[in-house]
């Protein structure tokens, strides 16, 4: 049977509806994941897209306005779901969207190749008794396979308009728009199940009904030959070839995020924009508004513009030097009046060493923003290509040992971008146990990209064997602590049942839209935390507590770690800005007057990697899991980082390396 257009639902609209122009009605797109909902959404709307997170979740909901059928519509694209039962965040959001507006028309989008699963969802939606339309999308792919579907007959059985569509080339869109006007509640389906509380039994009964429906009107065949894309999809999850694909992907992402983003872009914005222009301007402005006698030091800040090739070599295009004032200043002799003290306090709060502008904003915008932008971009491309589930297959077995499953690979990868942000995305994990373990490992052993760049530069000064020791120690700690945490934290890990979507070529417009929406989310959620964290540091500094804490730590650093006393400050700074701590040590290791031996560099590298990431991350942990969890993690990580560093120091000394 060939494809039959849904002429039965194309009845002419009654003219009385025309008068309702100006009334906005809502159209809700619902469907399984990867059925082309987003593309259909764009075909229906074309403009004014608004992306937002559904309240209380990280799930993105896209809305846009459109006019058709003489009415204004708000089109809402819900996250892809397999089951209406509100067990996952995605399903809760979709359920919420359906319940929020009882008058909304539901347009279910189905993959023509996978109609069985789509109709399971249709059965569930039908039980809600809401006006709906079924769009059978990707019809071309079904026809390519020699499959057929009788949409007219399906429409009669379901009692709703059923339209065949091919979203990329707009086929069936006019029919779909006409059908939205004809949307009606589906006919009740004979489902043999009395035990309505048993979700599994209900779904089985629904599937039986679906099989009955499909028996006479639908057929599909397996493709005879695999395309390159399909084969690439297989390679990406096969044992050895999968590892090769993974190595290539990680290498490319590392170059783009770690070298181009964290190197070139950060340099450009931090040095070129903030240090050379914004900070001096902010200092001058503050000095003009709040005058007190002081002279800022000047420094020549040089910015190198180039393209990175490896962590330690790049092609330099040019160097720009500029002599500017820096936050450090000297006060001439003679005491300040009380109001001058107040001025100085406010001055320092905004543009001092731990100032809101000179530290918090320049950190957030100049260092983290370029990194997360490149990271989110690479992440969206990988996400849209369908690669992540394949990666989860590769790591599932290793993650099982640490109480997680392959799905936790996403936050862990995000952690290599920014641990603070990754901590927030642990929300996608299903059980609390998994969220706590992942958060713990992120804070302990996953270096963020800002830190990773500096660590790699340090590694370049070491022998390859020492670099391997560093990688081995960090991975070993990750596995060991994960294994221990999995035993300490109560609860069960969730099942690893993961749909592997087909590999797709990512659509650039979609990737960009997602990247921008995530950057917006990052700015709203993370920047306040940076500002608060910096304010805490500022107060500690004003109360001269910083110096005291550093002095307290000195015996530990010199005695146990065998490092020079100067590095104590590096660890303290490392808590505020993870990369800064590493930079201190890099200076001590490779600077003009290097004071560290290779053995000491290794000890310092391990300690600073394991050290809690930064104050923003700690605040984020407290926000996500509560103060108790945050403090317990800190109480474990601080001593543990020093413990491992000391062990390496003593073992190394003992082996006389």
């Amino acid at each position: 049977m060939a494809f039959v257009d849904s002429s039965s639902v194309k009845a002419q609209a009654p003219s009385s509806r025309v008068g309702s122009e100006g009334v906005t009605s809502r159209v809700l797109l619902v469907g399984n994941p990867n059925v082309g909902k987003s593309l259909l959404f764009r075909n229906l709307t074309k403009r004014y897209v608004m992306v937002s997170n559904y309240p209380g979740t990280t799930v993105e909901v896209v809305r846009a306005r459109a006019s058709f059928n003489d009415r204004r519509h708000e089109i809402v694209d819900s996250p892809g779901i397999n089951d209406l039962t509100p067990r996952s965040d995605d399903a809760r959001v979709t359920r919420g969207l359906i319940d929020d507006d009882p008058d909304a028309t539901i347009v279910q989008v189905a993959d023509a190749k996978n109609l069985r699963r789509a109709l399971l969802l249709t059965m569930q939606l039908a039980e809600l008794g809401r006006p709906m339309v079924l769009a059978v999308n990707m019809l071309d792919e079904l026809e390519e396979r020699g499959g057929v579907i009788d949409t007219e007959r399906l429409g009669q059985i379901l009692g709703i308009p059923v339209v065949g569509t091919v979203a990329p080339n707009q086929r069936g869109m006019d029919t779909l728009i006409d059908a939205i006007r004809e949307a009606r509640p589906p006919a009740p389906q004979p489902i043999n199940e009395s035990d309505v509380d048993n979700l599994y039994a209900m779904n089985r009964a629904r599937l039986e009904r679906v099989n009955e429906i499909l028996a006479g009107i639908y057929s599909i065949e397996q493709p005879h030959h695999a395309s390159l894309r399909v084969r690439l999809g297989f390679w990406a999850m096969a044992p050895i070839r999968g590892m090769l694909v993974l190595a290539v992907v990680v290498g490319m992402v590392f170059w783009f995020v770690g070298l181009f983003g964290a190197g070139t872009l950060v340099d450009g914005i931090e040095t070129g924009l903030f240090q050379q222009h914004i900070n001096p301007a902010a200092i001058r402005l503050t000095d003009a508004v709040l005058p007190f006698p002081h002279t800022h030091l000047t420094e020549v800040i040089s910015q190198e513009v180039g393209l990175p090739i490896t962590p330690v070599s790049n092609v330099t295009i040019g160097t720009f030097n500029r002599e500017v004032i820096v936050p450090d200043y000297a006060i001439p002799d003679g005491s300040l009046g009380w109001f001058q003290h107040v001025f100085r306090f406010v001055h320092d709060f905004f543009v001092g060493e731990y100032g809101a502008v000179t530290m918090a904003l320049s950190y957030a915008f100049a260092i983290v923003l370029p990194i997360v932008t490149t990271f989110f971009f690479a992440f969206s491309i990988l996400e849209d290509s369908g690669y992540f589930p394949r990666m989860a297959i590769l790591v599932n077995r290793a993650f099982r040992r640490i109480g997680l499953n392959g799905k936790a690979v996403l936050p862990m990868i995000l952690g290599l971008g920014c641990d603070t942000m990754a901590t927030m995305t642990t929300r996608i994990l299903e059980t609390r146990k998994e969220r706590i373990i992942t958060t713990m490992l992120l804070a302990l052993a996953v270096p963020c990209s800002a830190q990773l760049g500096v660590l790699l530069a340090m590694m370049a000064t070491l022998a390859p064997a020492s670099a391997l020791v560093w990688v081995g120690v960090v991975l070993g700690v990750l596995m060991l602590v994960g294994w221990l945490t999995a035993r300490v934290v109560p609860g069960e890990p969730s099942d690893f049942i993961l749909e592997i979507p087909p590999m797709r070529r990512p659509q650039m417009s979609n990737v960009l839209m997602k990247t921008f929406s995530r950057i917006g989310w990052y700015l709203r959620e993370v920047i306040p935390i940076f500002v608060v964290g910096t304010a805490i540091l500022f107060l500690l500094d004003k109360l001269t507590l910083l110096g005291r804490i550093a002095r307290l730590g000195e015996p530990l650093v010199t005695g146990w770690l065998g490092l020079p006393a100067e590095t104590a400050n590096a660890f303290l700074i490392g808590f505020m800005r993870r990369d800064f701590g590493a930079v201190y040590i890099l200076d001590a290791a490779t600077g003009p007057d290097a004071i560290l031996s290779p053995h000491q560099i290794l000890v310092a590298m391990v300690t600073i990697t394991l050290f809690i990431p930064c104050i923003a991350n700690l605040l984020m942990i407290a926000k996500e899991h509560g103060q108790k969890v945050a403090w317990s993690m800190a109480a474990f990580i601080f001593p543990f980082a020093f413990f491992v560093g000391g062990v390496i120091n003593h073992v190394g000394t003992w082996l006389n390396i």
Partner: protein
Amino acid sequence: MAKYLTCPFCGFEFDSEDTLCHHGCPLGAHCKLIRCPNCQYEYAERPAGVRWIQNLFRKRAHLEETHPELVTTARELDAGASATVMCIGGTRESRKNSLAVFGLVPGAEITVLQQRPECVLRVGETELALDADIARLVLVKRKNGVRS
């Protein structure tokens, strides 16, 4: 001689002695219900006369002998092998439901795409990765009688 029963829900074949719910159950002596030890489905055994009449009208396929050597778990199948799902073990209904929404229910036809590093099945047009432990709970019957 033990009596063999076939669960009408999941197709599992078991010895009547294995219906464990009768042990220690105060109603055991009077209860005529049979509970499948695999899927916990409870059903009443049909009287012999009814069965005889039903057998007369039953399709040939149902009378086909069960070949125990064809029955295995999804984990045991080689990559590329196809099979029909007979039943899904375990007691966690939520897990069975998570599989059901992907179409993995008794009666579904599956093809194993790979077993390493993790088991990946194709159910209809869906490719599904499963933990080895879960794949072991999916009891299947090899298709075409081919044993590899």
